[in-house]
């Protein structure tokens, strides 16, 4: 079992985690995001040529809403905080309950830490599709962000580095 960058030779169609939004993105858009638009990097967990899980990472930022007065003065009060977005992470339904999600998340976190050796990033943001996903990340110390509708959780990169001994 190993992790590698998504490429054309992977058969994505047989993957199914059971959540339509994730499966549909992986089947129809992951390839395009990887190659054409370059908007996300997707990594797949492969075992004997079968995809057992995936996650995708993209550059992101956290921005505080400005007051109309600050905006009109053209002086935003808060800088945009550079972040990496762990947009999706999923395990094939036939392998749920084996602890693969936790190991794949650890893989993603290590990859983010490695990236931050070269590019300054302050926060890791995860996008949780539903309450059970949010609870999953909370178990690992991610904090819920107050924000706009979607459930997003945050970890500070400096804490990740400290925790992982990077």
């Amino acid at each position, binding site marked *: *079992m*190993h*992790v*590698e960058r998504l490429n054309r030779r992977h058969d994505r169609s047989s993957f199914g985690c059971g959540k339509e939004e994730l499966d549909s993105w992986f089947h129809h858009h992951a390839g395009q995001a990887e190659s054409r638009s370059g908007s996300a990097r997707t990594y797949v*967990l*492969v075992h004997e040529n079968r995809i057992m899980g995936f996650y995708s990472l*993209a*550059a*992101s*930022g*956290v*921005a*505080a*809403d*400005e*007051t109309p007065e600050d905006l009109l003065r053209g002086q935003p*009060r*808060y800088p*945009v*905080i550079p*972040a990496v*977005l762990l947009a999706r992470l999923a395990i094939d339904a036939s392998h749920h309950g084996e*602890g693969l999600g*936790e*190991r*794949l*998340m*650890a*893989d993603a*976190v*290590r990859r983010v830490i490695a990236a931050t050796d070269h590019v300054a990033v*302050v*926060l890791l*943001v995860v996008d949780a599709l539903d309450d059970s996903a949010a609870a999953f990340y909370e*178990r*690992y*110390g991610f*904090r819920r*962000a*107050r*924000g*706009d509708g979607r459930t*997003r959780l945050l*970890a*500070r990169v*400096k*804490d*990740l*580095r*400290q*925790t*992982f*001994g990077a």
Partner: protein
Amino acid sequence: MATAHKTQRLHARLSPEQDRRLREAAAVLGVPMSQFAVDAADAAARQVLSDERLLRVPQEAADELFAWLDEPARVVPEMRRLVDARRFEQA
């Protein structure tokens, strides 16, 4: 922001004050008011969509967020499990 096929219409009501302001602004740029309104709305829509990846935090939570970022780095005990998790090989 010219679009190839302008087949759709947008009807909108606005206050006399908004009407005056839009006409004035359109006149400054020397474009018809309808074009000004559509271009401005389109630009705002692009902004919203391009910012989709940005996490927006309400103003009242911002100070708390920045205060948290200023705190010194710490080991997150809940993440020990991740550190200890058996690693996958990298291809």
